[in-house]
């Protein structure tokens, strides 16, 4: 017993030293949420844990969220770069471009980016050729499918309003896709750019019974949340880009799961923290894309969900 104690006591300083030898990695996080618990961040943490990187012990997070204010993003990105984090983990184009502008040295791993090449984030998906790599949510490409889902649920649908922040480049790209797809689906897509919250209230007055809403994938100025509110209060069907919105009352969504993108990105983050260069890691397409339908909201809106949708949907909220 005494011997054992002596041995343990002798080992203690070494154990402490070994722990000190590698300080926890510091991951900076940048997104547009209103709190630290954006699902991509939760996914990242869970993914890293599975890869053996425990929060606190092996990795710490410096989370900056900008509450839907794009103008706050550049400042937050610069702060993270100055703080000397080991890696910056971003969600959406605005945050990723801000991180790219803030540093050419610190690796950046992005999520929720619809088209990383078109938005100038990377030169090529296979070889990013800079300090950035990440997950492409494919959200821009999926816009026609989103409209199709809406039309399948409501065959009589004619007009879809799309409100988006005028300065969001990817939202503009999404609108182009929506306008291209509209005639084929027998729909009229009405794009409306918003530059200030008061403007959104004004524009919402243009909605008429029978119209529907296409929500943007970027939460600038809280536009998707406002659209969700209006959808439920005025019984206007709305389609969203991800399941999170459907689990909180949105009628339907088609797109990459936010949390799953975080989990997927964790593999890239872990590799980079352990020494791989970001430019050697190809950008990955999101591997979990779901069709989600909220049946309770369908009932509220008087939408009869066709059997083929019930069979096809990955997630049904009752």
């Amino acid at each position: 017993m005494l011997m054992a104690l002596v041995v343990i006591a002798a080992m203690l300083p070494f154990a402490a030293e070994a722990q000190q030898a590698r300080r926890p990695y510091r991951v900076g996080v940048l997104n547009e949420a209103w709190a630290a618990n954006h699902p991509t961040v939760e996914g990242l943490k869970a993914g890293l844990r599975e890869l053996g990187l425990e929060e606190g012990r092996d990795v710490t997070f410096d989370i900056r969220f900008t509450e839907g204010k794009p103008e706050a993003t550049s400042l937050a990105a610069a702060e993270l770069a100055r703080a000397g984090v080991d890696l910056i983990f971003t969600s959406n184009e605005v945050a990723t471009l801000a991180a790219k502008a803030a540093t050419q040295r610190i690796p950046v791993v992005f999520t929720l980016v619809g088209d990383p090449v078109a938005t100038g984030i990377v030169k090529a998906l296979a070889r990013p050729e800079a300090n950035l790599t990440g997950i492409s949510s494919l959200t821009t490409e999926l816009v026609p499918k989103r409209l199709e889902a809406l039309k399948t649920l409501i065959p009589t649908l004619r007009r879809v309003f799309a409100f988006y922040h005028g300065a969001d480049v990817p939202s503009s790209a999404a609108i182009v896709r929506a306008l291209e797809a509209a005639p084929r689906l027998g729909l009229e897509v009405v794009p409306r750019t918003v530059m200030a919250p008061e403007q959104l209230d004004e524009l919402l007055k243009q909605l008429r019974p029978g119209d529907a809403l296409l929500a943007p994938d970027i939460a600038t100025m809280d536009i998707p949340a406002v659209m969700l509110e209006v959808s439920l209060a005025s019984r206007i069907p709305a389609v969203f880009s991800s399941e999170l919105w459907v689990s909180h009352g949105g009628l339907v969504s088609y797109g990459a799961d936010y949390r799953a993108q975080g989990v997927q990105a964790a593999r890239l983050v872990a590799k980079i923290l352990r020494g791989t260069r970001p430019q050697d890691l190809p950008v990955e397409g999101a591997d979990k894309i779901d069709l989600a339908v909220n049946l309770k909201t369908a009932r509220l809106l008087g939408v009869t969900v066709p059997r083929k949708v019930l069979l096809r949907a990955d997630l049904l909220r009752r």
Partner: protein
Amino acid sequence: MRWGRAVIAGFVFTSLSISMLARGDAQSPLRIGASLPQTGPYAGPGQNQLRGYRLCVKDANEKGGVLGRRIELIAEDDQSKAPTAVAIYERLITQGKVDAILGPYYAPVVEAVADVSEKHKMPMVAPAGATTSIHKKGRRFVFMMFSPGEVYLEGLIDMAARRGLKTVALIHEDTMFPRGLAAGTLELARKRGLSVVLVEAYPPRTTDFSAILTKVRTANPDVLAAGTYFDDAVAITRQLRELNVNPKMFAVTVGGDFPEFYQILGRGAEFVYGASQWEAELVTFRAGGLIPLARQYPGAREFVESYRKEFPGAALSYHSASGYGGCQVLIGAIRRAGSLDGEKVRDAILTMDLYTVFGAFKVDKAGIQIAHKMAMFQWQDGKKVIVWPEELAPGKPRFPTPPWSQR
């Protein structure tokens, strides 16, 4: 033919007299009766619940009352004593002093009064009952606002399971509500693969927990859950320190959420988890940091503001919100039923699926709440930080709880 006409004439006469009666009633206020502890051990939460009732009645009157009548609240003091409460409700109902009732505070009182409401077929929304056994005795007229005790500690078990903890000990006051809570928690723990290493019940008004806590220390569980009211929650926390018992997570149920819990224990309250039915700040939360929850608490922001204005300096707790919400449900049901008829109001309550300032409301056929959701908080630097449901909570649990020697 002549007979038929007589019936019609009779019918016309009856409906005329009913409408005359209704007109007569329209001038008199609609009275809602309740008893709540305004003195005695549970006066704190009881008063909060009463303030909720008062504010709800005031707001409803500002919107024109119900059935065209002003609402009047008659509230008496039962000192949390069941016989007193029974006598109050019985008198209010039989002497025709009230047209409807709202529930009292404290589970045993709710159960005793439930028999009165049952006897008179007068629906009772009970904003303070969380005991399912009350609803499992064939009663048809009592309705729960709270999440039932069985799920109070769902968050604790979920957080523990997610963090790979393996063992749970459960101690609880040996009365109705904590018993249901204990049974439910055991079930939740088993479902999540945690093994229960100790269950101990203690009589009400216990002040010395050293024997029980020594057993807990021997069992050395990862998680300690205590089914408490206020005084026991304080005493147990204090004696855990004295006896140097160090679970990785420790939670209390009722009592841990009162500001007095921290005022009395100071730093000793740090790291303690508690269950809450409702917190004012929930309204400001966003799911996934993105989707505002305000819609699930319609009017809650305004409720908090007008409560502080109406009762300056008074405590605001989930009892206040549940009181307000319970009164909203009753008035809403009377409005839907278009009548004060007990059966009709009951049917209206059973079909309700809505949000009040207190959150979701929907009951099953037995009147047990099935829609409302609990939250868990942890005392961190003197603040109650909501840490569960993790999807909604911006705060993170400080885990594991360090041993007393390192706090």
